């Protein structure tokens, strides 16, 4: 049975959620250099998994779990080169 819990109960916010999102944002340049554009799974400021899809990243994270028996609540983020996507954002807006 998986120890990774990507969903949380209504009203529950694991303490790592906001610090992990902030860590990804602060280290986006290094993460992009290391992994390229990808889905990334992070728990307590450590990369557990990467993949081209959400599920690939979760499956990869299963191979890199921290020691112990407890469930973990990592966050998922798509890391991307934001400057390259500015043009795409404009095109999407044109059609909305």
């Amino acid at each position: 049975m998986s120890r990774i819990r990507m969903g949380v109960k209504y009203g529950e916010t694991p303490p790592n959620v906001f610090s992990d999102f902030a860590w990804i944002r602060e280290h986006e340049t290094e993460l992009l250099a290391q992994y390229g554009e990808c889905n990334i799974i992070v728990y307590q400021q450590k990369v557990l998994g990467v993949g081209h899809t959400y599920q690939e990243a979760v499956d990869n994270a299963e191979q890199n779990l921290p020691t112990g028996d407890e469930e973990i609540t990592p966050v998922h983020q798509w890391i991307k080169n934001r400057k390259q996507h500015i043009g795409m954002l404009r095109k999407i807006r044109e059609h909305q």
Partner: protein
Amino acid sequence: MIRISLQITQNPPQAEVIIRFLRKDGSWLFVTATVDTGAEITFLPEDILNVIDYNTAQTSYLTVERAGIRNADYKVTETIVTVQLEDAFGNISQPFEMPIWFGQTKVQLFGMTNAIQRGVLHLDMPSLSGYIELP
């Protein structure tokens, strides 16, 4: 009214919001999205659609054409999703429904039109602060 703080950065200059989505298993998934004041609708990668709960009766499939670019059309799934907004200070909105486009994209945009209709957006880039106020 509840005030949901945004994550503001100056390089690149942007504001991010954290959205909770109801998953198919009844739990909630956190997703970050860039606030886009020019977008009428939220636009997210279709991977997310595979794990969240949504009403298939309120789902439609669209082909978006890009003017002047051959073979550059892309398909999106438009559906109504139950979401909450949350911030790092423990503030969380009531669940509400909003229309979202899901497609083969790498961008995660929070289209403001729907949210603005419901509340107030405040951005103060020099002081790196901002919030959305919702009923």
